């Protein structure tokens, strides 16, 4: 009994409706502490919707979201951040009018430990040297790859126990994508728990422990990442 680890995040029978459309139908997924879990699937399958429901940006029609043993299905978005979940969203959504430094500082908005915040900002600059060079720059002037780095660094500034990453490779050159995924590996090694949404299924599974496949709002496959990569049906549908 002591060997079974409680999941850090458990999504149970989750359904989401947008207007009249069923975006998610009773999906189940779990993320164990320290795991990197990939959520893959075609465009419009409901991957981002799942993350947005966990962050409470959209309302849940049915089912529940359990984080660290507590039901957060009806929590408000800012309470989610305080609980320890950070979300690096689709489209990055950096604050284009503020400086790199202010973006990072606002990432720690929920924290009050000034000294530690300053230390963590330096840590982010160590992790993302390109951001360090541009700390006084207005974030809107950064390149796509730099903006993605800023979005991840900003999410890390809240010292999350669970990091939700939405399409970190979207629109980036292969070299930059590789750089980003090296950082994801490093975070994994440090023990950060990550739920990763990616359209690039092969890439995501290569860096994850386990994976789930979403199809039109339902989970059709799940299992260890290596098994999914080898699965004939997953290969045909998503790995080409």
């Amino acid at each position, binding site marked *: 009994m002591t060997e079974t680890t409680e999941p850090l995040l458990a999504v149970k029978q989750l359904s989401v409706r947008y207007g009249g459309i069923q975006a998610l139908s009773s999906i189940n997924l779990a993320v164990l502490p320290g795991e990197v879990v990939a959520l893959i699937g075609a465009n419009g399958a409901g991957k981002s919707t799942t993350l947005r429901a966990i*962050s409470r*940006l959209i309302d849940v029609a049915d089912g529940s979201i359990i984080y660290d043993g507590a039901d957060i299905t009806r929590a*408000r*978005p*800012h309470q*989610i*951040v*305080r609980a320890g979940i*950070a*979300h690096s*969203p689709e489209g990055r*959504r*950096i*604050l*284009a*009018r*503020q400086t790199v430094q*202010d973006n990072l*500082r*606002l*990432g720690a*908005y*929920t924290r009050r430990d000034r000294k530690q915040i300053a230390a963590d900002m330096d840590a982010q600059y160590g992790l993302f040297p390109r951001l360090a060079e541009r700390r006084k720059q207005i974030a*809107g002037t950064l390149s796509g790859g730099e903006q993605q780095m800023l979005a991840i660094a*900003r999410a890390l500034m*809240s010292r999350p126990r669970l990091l939700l990453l939405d399409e970190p490779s979207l629109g980036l050159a292969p070299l930059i994508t590789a750089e980003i995924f090296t950082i994801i590996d490093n975070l994994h090694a440090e023990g950060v728990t990550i739920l990763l949404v990616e359209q690039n299924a092969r890439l995501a599974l290569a860096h994850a422990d386990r994976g789930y496949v979403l199809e039109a709002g339902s989970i059709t496959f799940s299992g260890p990442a290596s098994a999914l990569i080898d699965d004939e049906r997953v290969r045909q549908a998503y790995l080409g």
Partner: protein
Amino acid sequence: MRGGALVAPPDRQAGVDFSQILQNILNGLSIGSVYAIFALGYTLVFSILGIINFAHGAVFTLGAYFTYALTGQRFGFNGLLSNTALPVALPFIVAMLGGATLAGLVSVLVERVAFRPLRQRNADRLLSVVSSLGVAVILVNLIQYLVGAESYSYPSNPFGLSKPAINFGSVERPIPVRSIQIVIFAVALVILLLLTLAINRTMLGKALQAVAEDLTTARLLGINTKRLIVLTFFVSGFLAGLAGTLVGASQSITGPYFGITFGLKGLGVIVLGGLGNVSGAVLGGFVIGLAEAFVPPQFVQYKEAVAFAILFLILLIRPQGLLGRTQVQKV
């Protein structure tokens, strides 16, 4: 001798013009600073929610009446509250801050009634124009119902100033400026300074800027956006109420429609400065205040038109307003 009969001595001519100009500048700065305070309230709400609060002028009016009531003065003979007064008479400064606070609370209520229900239903932003105008009409009529349509004046010399006017010129060429205008200017400067510091130098201000830029991002950063929106409406109403009291103190409260012209002019000020731009609202306030002060006395009945004429001209050249940023869509 021949030239002297035709032309006035050069030094006196220059002197008259100069003192008149200085006088106009001082008057313009004083009224302009009130426009700035009032317009800031508009622009704060606009920058956060992207909507114009048309009840802002009514809150301005209410602020003036609240202050009047808090100074313990009696209302007139019309309306439900005829010939009544509060049992306490607060000193004017305290009453002014109290009136502004109450106006802030009304503004929070306006958000609750006219904006939040629409926002929660993701309604078209234009609908809030209608709902806030509706609230404005209700507030104005409520005032009339309660205290009638007559004009009210604050106690003379409300700030306890030792002199009614201060001479900025010399004994021979006086440039008298009413002391109350100097007080108004000083109060406005303090408010503007505090607000600018709060927005640019505090975490709360940066959070507010984040909410203004992207509500979703603000939520993801852990900012309690609902609470910040309420706070913004409070500050906005507080500033409106303060402006109402200051204008009431320099003239009088001219009735329930006191804030209507002011509300329209305030709109002109923020559009002139650049919608949603804090420094733009301040600059716009001073530009319009100064322009009005330079209207020659014989055209004083057209004073109200000056603001809109300037607005029209400047928007022809800079459609985004003086300090507004051009909309750049980055794909």
